């Protein structure tokens, strides 16, 4: 209690308690399943770009909806509200800037791909593309894990990197399903444990 290390640990534990509900893992698992459904339904081959984008957004949006609703209606009322200090806010800002960079690179790559496709230019379908995709996605999730003090995120990053990176060699549908399952299982376990540990109390309705 009486040294700064203990207070740091207290703050870290408080911060991490918000990642112990398993919802983030469930969300990441659902994204992989959404991609599996997308591929399994043959949406990748659909010519209509708008339809393809709509289906993709619907699936990813559905995954996000589960995450948002879970946080909003299940875990947040049980955990309570807390505003963390300036150091955490700075980390969040840095993370947002870095993820903005990742998003920008993704958007540029999508635009370049669309331009190449429209000009009937050959798209690279070789190993480096998949490896790059795997490393890129894995690095993005590992970055989130590092900035959020979320060690399980590194495991998720490896699964994501493998799912995207091995797309050339194995059945994409199968690997996204398996990857999603591997990410989802710890999330569901944590979510159930969280619900047992934090039953909804009367106090929440009051001023909690």
């Amino acid at each position, binding site marked *: 209690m*009486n040294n700064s290390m203990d207070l740091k640990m*207290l*703050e870290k534990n408080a911060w991490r308690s918000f990642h112990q509900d398993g919802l983030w893992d469930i969300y990441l698992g659902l994204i992989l399943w959404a991609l599996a459904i997308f591929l399994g339904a043959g949406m990748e081959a659909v010519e209509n770009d708008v339809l393809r984008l709509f289906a993709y957004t619907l699936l990813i949006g559905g995954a996000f909806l589960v995450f948002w609703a879970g946080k909003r209606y299940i875990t947040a009322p049980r955990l309570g509200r807390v*505003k963390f200090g300036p150091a955490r806010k700075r980390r969040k800002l840095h993370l947002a800037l870095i993820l903005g960079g990742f998003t920008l690179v993704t958007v540029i790559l999508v635009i370049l791909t669309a331009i190449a496709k429209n000009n009937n230019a050959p798209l690279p379908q070789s190993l480096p593309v998949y490896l790059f995709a795997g490393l890129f996605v894995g690095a993005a999730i590992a970055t989130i894990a590092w900035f959020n003090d979320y060690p399980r995120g590194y495991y998720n990053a490896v699964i994501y990197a493998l799912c995207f990176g091995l797309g050339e060699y194995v059945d994409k549908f199968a690997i996204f399903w398996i990857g999603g399952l591997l990410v989802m299982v710890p999330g569901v376990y944590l979510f159930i444990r969280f619900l047992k540990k934090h039953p909804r109390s009367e106090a929440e309705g*009051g001023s909690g």
Partner: protein
Amino acid sequence: MGRKRADPTAGQLGGIDRVVHEPARLVILANLYVVESADYTYLMNRTGLTWGNLSAHLSKLEEAGYVKIEKDFVEKKPHTMVRMTNNGRVAFDNYRNQMRKFGL
């Protein structure tokens, strides 16, 4: 021999702030020290105190000027956030320094 006058440092013993020294309040303050503000539910989770206990201790801390209790409405529901004041931070730091001197 007149009557003993009220000690202006009442609540302090040997320089130790007894408002802070009480275990439950110490845990509350430690948890508030590391964040900007928190609500009752969060503090109940972190401290293991019941609603009534927490409320009683927070009232004492508020009386001492160590925390500020802010009531507002979130989505039409009453919501209470608790924030440690600068005085509270100083008192907590002083207490920690005193404990260090005692080798605790």
